[in-house]
């Protein structure tokens, strides 16, 4: 992790952020216009949780269904 590597870091890309249940929270897209100005786009999740789903989340363990065994329900 020397200074040279920092400078030569190549362009990623797309970064996807997921919550504990594997749902996409945010998508980041990094791009460059080649003139030293860098651009990052933050995209909201493709589908946000409905109110009943959010209510259900209050009663389920964080990360359900991945965080528990399959016979939990």
């Amino acid at each position: 992790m020397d200074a040279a590597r920092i400078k030569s870091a190549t362009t990623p890309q797309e970064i996807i952020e997921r919550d504990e249940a594997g749902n996409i929270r945010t998508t980041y897209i990094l791009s460059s216009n080649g003139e030293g100005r860098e651009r990052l786009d933050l995209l909201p999740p493709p589908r946000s949780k409905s109110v009943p789903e959010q209510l259900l989340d209050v009663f389920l363990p964080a990360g359900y269904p991945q965080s528990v065994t399959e016979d939990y329900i």
Partner: protein
Amino acid sequence: MGIGWVSYQIYDSLQAFSSSIAGMFASRAVLEGVGVGDAQASPTAALLLSVIQESVGRIATILFAHRVGTALEPECKMFRLAADVFNDTAMVLDCLSPAFPKTTRVLMLSMASVLRALCGVAAGSSKASLSAHFAKQGNLAELNAKDSSQETIISLLGMLAGSFVISRVTSHSAVWTSLLILISIHLWTNYMAVRSVILRTLNRQRANIVLSSLIGSSNLPSPQEASHLERIFERPGLLRWVDGRILGHCMIGVELSSILRQLPGAASRPSGKSRIYRYDLAPQKILGLFDKEFYVLWFDTRTRTAYIALKEGCQPRDQVRAWCHALLVARKYDLKGLEVPADQKTDYDAVPPALQLLAKTGDELSRNFHAYEDKLQSAGWDTTTIQLETRPRIRISLSE
């Protein structure tokens, strides 16, 4: 049984004893408040009052479990003690209530009920977590059963002693003196009970103690030694050196956006549902710095806060390494600030000092982290379960 079990149980029993006597004072005050001994009091009003209390208490239970749920396990010592602080505050409110007019009294009793609900959630789940720590041979269920028989016999004795005390203590000043003495005993015994527990998992505070000793002196405290250094009510997310000095804060498992929005020269504008940021410093530089690691770290020098975003597939060791990196950066910054060595002055524009600090400490960590890991394991620390995250987990995945 794990070590520390006996002293924990002794203090735990003592606290139950004083708590059951103090509870009797509180119950008497509540009965007085609803009008026991008053010919004009109506049983319906008393019943409705208890319905109100129960309802707010239950709502509080659900909300509190939702709010702090994921922090209960890592911070179980803190919540174990906090539960009793909630409970004792509720008792004080109960005892104060008869002195107030009706509306205020209802509010106070409801507040007490909320506090009892918080106590219930915090005590129940942190006890479960502690029992799981104590049970060594798959004897969790039996251990719990015996725990409750211990508590039952002690509470029974407490109630008998309480009946004796309460019939003699009736004057205002005597009631308050005994209540305060009982509450002090209750909190002190609880504090001692929690202190005597020797946990081997690394939560944020224990990670600070262990990792800063490793970095500073390579003299690693055992779980038992570390338990003496632990503070029960530590401010969450603090980066503290083993000598007690506060170096800053650290948030682990954050969204990548909380790092990206702080990079130098970040300016943003919304665009439809999405948001666009523009930078002078390429975010790729910081991501590139961590492309071999399972985390991305940024240290904001203004607020001295380290932000760690975790990548998909990160293992316990990666989280420990990330925390170690944060400690190392905060320590370096605390000692020397953002110094730029003479030979690197030319690179100053290309590679900002903040990034250099991250890179240099990362190199140092790469050299030493293997040795740290070995030492952690041989000192008896649990390196397979990690309790650094206190919020629902967030992971990022980078495409190639």
